[in-house]
């Protein structure tokens, strides 16, 4: 269905820790941040691989870790798995002039989110799959994260849309009309509603 990071809408985490102190970054954490940047720049993996390595953590480990430790685990994982692999430094933003299919939807288009269950990294949260919304605006264009993480050579850039969902659509009777949710979704996830 999705991975442990996909927690939008879940109960059980309690009130927001408003006064949580910002911990000063320890030296190893600053080094790991830099190492991650360097390895992405050198093509050992891309940013989507990095995100997905965090998502693939054992769920209990994920919830028990700070973001610094999650980064460490991700880099450790990727360094083991991709010792010699190299990724083409991609420019995932395709300029509009480069062609590709024209945008399928316009602002105001009613759309439904597909109910697919990708086995890979995805940026379409579980809470919005199968839900109906309205396109508000066009964002940019890029290869979708599912294809970026699989390094699909011929992947084409897709239009990204800002889509608005009414709270009742997402949360039923607990959703308030005054609290809509807006997400940015790749075109491949959207179907028209007649």
């Amino acid at each position, binding site marked *: 269905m999705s991975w442990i990071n996909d927690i*939008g*809408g879940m109960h059980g985490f309690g009130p927001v820790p408003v006064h949580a102190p910002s911990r000063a970054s*320890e*030296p*190893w954490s600053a080094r790991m941040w830099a190492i991650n940047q360097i390895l992405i720049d050198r093509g*050992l993996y891309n940013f989507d691989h990095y995100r997905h390595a965090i998502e693939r953590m054992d769920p209990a480990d994920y919830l028990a870790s700070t973001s610094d430790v999650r980064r460490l685990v991700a880099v450790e994982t990727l360094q083991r798995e991709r010792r010699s692999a190299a990724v083409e430094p991609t420019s995932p933003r395709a300029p509009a002039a480069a062609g590709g299919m024209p945008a399928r939807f316009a602002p105001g288009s009613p759309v439904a989110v597909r109910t697919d269950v990708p086995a890979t990294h995805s940026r379409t*949260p579980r809470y919005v799959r199968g839900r109906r919304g309205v396109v508000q605006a066009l964002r*940019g264009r890029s290869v979708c994260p599912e294809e970026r993480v699989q390094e699909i050579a011929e992947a084409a850039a897709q239009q990204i849309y800002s889509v608005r969902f009414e709270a009742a659509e997402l949360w039923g009777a607990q959703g308030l009309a*005054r609290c809509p949710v807006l997400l*940015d979704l790749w075109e491949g996830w959207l179907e028209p509603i007649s």
Partner: protein
Amino acid sequence: MDDDQTATLADAQDPATRTGRIEQTLRESGLLQDDDIARRTGGAPTAEKFIEGRRVVARAWVDAAFRRRLLADAGSAIAELGLTVEAGHQPGLELHAVENTDSVHNLIVCTLCSCYPRALLGAPPAWYSSEAYRAKAVRDPLGVLEDFGLQLGEDVSIQVWDSTAETRYLVVPQRPDGTQGWSEDELSELITPDALIGTAVVSAPVST
């Protein structure tokens, strides 16, 4: 795809030791060279970045034309101040500014991780990356604002923006009353990270 070799927390040793081990392996394979890290650690998100980044909102408060440009094309507008949302290792990031009004309040979240305009504003407040915030903001934004002690009028809607793709969001709070004639620098000092995410509004201290 390579087989899954996901590292675990149980993999021995403290983070500093594991970091050292990773570094050594990478140096041995040639993926890391001598001064690589030293050259990069200066690029990490810092508190100083926030002090620069919040100037964008102060400028929008005093300059109506800049405000219009910011709302129409935030990336180009912040470039006028020498600022950017782009990060070297994460290509394609864009910025979108959303304004608070008397009838609409905006709240930014990243439910899937903790995406945030770091290159513009530095590291987010610790609460922003918490599971509690990431889970609650999309389902119960009023409850989140209650956690922060922020109450809005019943006729105010709360638009929750989940940063799922390449766009990063910046809230433009309403300029506080009682700041007529203030300079951009004075206004800038009132602006907090919470206000640019949407869990606070900006207020001017009451003069005695």
